[in-house]
């Protein structure tokens, strides 16, 4: 009997036992769908994280009042720390040997307006004039904010693409006026489009001099300081230098623990990688266990199927089926069962990934290799756990099988 025919026969048998077949494939379904869904989500995240978060600049580190806090108490303690100041940034810039740029950064959300047009939930970012050196923000029209903008506390702004679209389309925004909250600004530059990270647009943004920001909003928003080291080789020195200088400015001894955090995006990336490694480990566990359970269930169901069809096996043997034909018949059935489980798993896992992408800001991308791995796993399970029942079926003595009552 040809393989194709065995497969057709197997499918018709499985179809005639729909409910049982479905219950049988649940384990495999769970395994394959978790492979597909988890890989989709993690790979999606990976792409964004490596593209976007790492592009916050190489050999850049950030000094902030807050560090990574894992519990509420730590967070409250961090909250009581002294704020970083603009003067801290100025002092670092003056004294640091290993820094190419020192940039104070502060931000909040605000509504932008121009006449009747409005852009809600825009990020207003106050920056020191060294920010172009961080290499993360480019202008495509007009100019960057300058030192004299910062020193003169001018009401000038560089806007993101989405702001241009909402407020100025179809006009050229450069040189035109807009309002940030109730303050009037003149647009001097337009940022290159950056896309979105985790569903947050990076282009609904307006950059203003940090001094102007302070004039508008006071001192409540905490300042972070971004430092770009003079080179990759001096990144560590630059961090130590900045840490020491800030400790002294904040009245600490050099040997004291700093009451601020210094972190690089690489550190964040490390943390992220550990996190994904954990998720993958967990998935591997779930997959292994559900495949094992799925396989055992398949094996048991195949034994039931062999017993139920002992008579049929006897008839086939009497008509000339070789042992091999019987093995192939039952193996096709267990493999078809498992692969069906795999296919449903791919649908479910892919569906879950797509749904997740729709309703949450998590990006997801179904990977062809994960589908291939899932289906390969499923068919191997079907093959492996099907061999024993199929062999047993083929070893039945024809006369005895024929005498079986059913």
């Amino acid at each position: 009997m040809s393989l194709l025919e065995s497969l057709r026969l197997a499918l018709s048998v499985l179809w005639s036992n729909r409910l049982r077949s479905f219950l049988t494939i649940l384990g495999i379904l769970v395994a394959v769908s978790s492979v597909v869904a988890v890989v989709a989500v993690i790979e999606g995240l990976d792409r964004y994280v490596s593209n976007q978060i790492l592009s916050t600049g190489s050999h850049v580190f950030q000094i902030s009042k807050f560090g990574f806090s894992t519990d509420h108490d730590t967070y409250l303690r961090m909250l009581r720390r002294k704020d970083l100041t603009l003067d801290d940034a100025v002092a670092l810039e003056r004294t640091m040997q290993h820094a190419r740029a020192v940039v104070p950064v502060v931000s909040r959300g605000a509504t932008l307006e121009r006449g009747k047009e409005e852009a809600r939930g825009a990020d207003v970012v106050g920056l020191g004039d060294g920010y172009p050196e961080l290499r993360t923000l480019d202008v495509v029209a007009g100019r960057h904010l300058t030192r004299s903008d910062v020193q003169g506390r001018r009401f000038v702004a560089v806007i993101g693409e989405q702001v241009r679209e909402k407020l100025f389309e179809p006009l050229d925004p450069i040189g035109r006026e807009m309002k940030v909250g109730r303050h009037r600004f003149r647009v001097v530059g337009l940022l290159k489009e950056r896309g979105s990270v985790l569903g947050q647009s990076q282009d609904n943004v307006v950059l203003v001099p940090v001094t102007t920001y302070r004039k508008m909003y006071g001192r409540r928003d905490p300042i972070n300081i971004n430092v770009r080291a003079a080179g990759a080789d001096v990144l560590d020195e630059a961090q130590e230098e900045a840490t020491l200088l800030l400790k002294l400015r904040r009245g600490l001894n050099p040997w004291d623990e700093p009451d601020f955090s210094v972190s690089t995006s690489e550190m964040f990336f490390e943390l992220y990688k550990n996190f994904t490694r954990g998720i993958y480990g967990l998935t591997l566990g779930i997959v292994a266990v559900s495949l094992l359970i799925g396989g055992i269930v398949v094996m048991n169901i195949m034994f039931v199927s062999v017993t139920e069809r002992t008579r049929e096996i006897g008839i086939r043997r009497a008509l000339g089926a070789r042992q091999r034909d019987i093995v192939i018949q039952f193996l096709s059935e267990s493999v078809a069962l498992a692969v069906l489980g795999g296919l449903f798993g791919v649908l479910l896992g892919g569906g879950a990934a797509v749904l997740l992408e729709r309703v949450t800001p998590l990006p997801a991308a179904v990977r062809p290799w994960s589908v291939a791995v899932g289906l390969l796993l499923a068919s191997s399970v079907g093959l492996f756990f099907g061999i024993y029942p199929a062999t047993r079926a083929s070893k039945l003595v024809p006369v005895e099988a024929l005498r079986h009552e059913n």
Partner: protein
Amino acid sequence: MAAPLPLISLRGITRIYQAGREQVRALDDVDLTIQRNEYLAVMGPSGSGKSTLMNIIGCLDTPTAGSYLLNGTAVEGLDDDALARIRNREIGFVFQTFNLLPRADALHNVELPLVYAGLSIRERRERAREALAQVGLAPETKRRPNELSGGQRQRVAIARALVTSPSLILADEPTGNLDSKTGEEILAVFETIHRAGNSIILVTHDENIARRAHRIVRLLDGRVSSDVVRETAR
């Protein structure tokens, strides 16, 4: 002049079943020679070993002792694949309980031996249709066994036995589950296919049925108690 090579030659065939501690001699030193195109009836009381004999001749079971030549080939030494091949090419079985596959329609049931013979679908269809026509069936090809009458089922089974053009048709009480009128029709079918050149061994309890065969072998307690070739035959 050499005697023609017999179709079947059994020498000292013994079959012992192990039933718990007890040993049952279902067949005890049976010698039997059957020629091509014989129509032979096997009779005997229940438990005398008729089915056991049929199963051994049909290569579904192997004797405990004795030698069996089929078409001059010793069956004892053959492996499972070779036995499967013999069952497929040389033997056609007809069972008392029909033994059709319930899920398959009549045509597919008749095709089944050809599937294991490795024929293409087209060839299978054609030969299965011919076999169905030979037993007086045709329009029922799309029906499943449970949609057929007992007589029709047995016709399908006979078509299935015929479809590979085997050397020998073995029928173990083929009319046992049928009423006498339907049984009569089935016997007519056997007579037709016998006239067409087939060799047939038929097990029956019914003297009237046995009398229509050309040779009657009687078993008693696993032994051949009589072997009569009827005058009127041949």
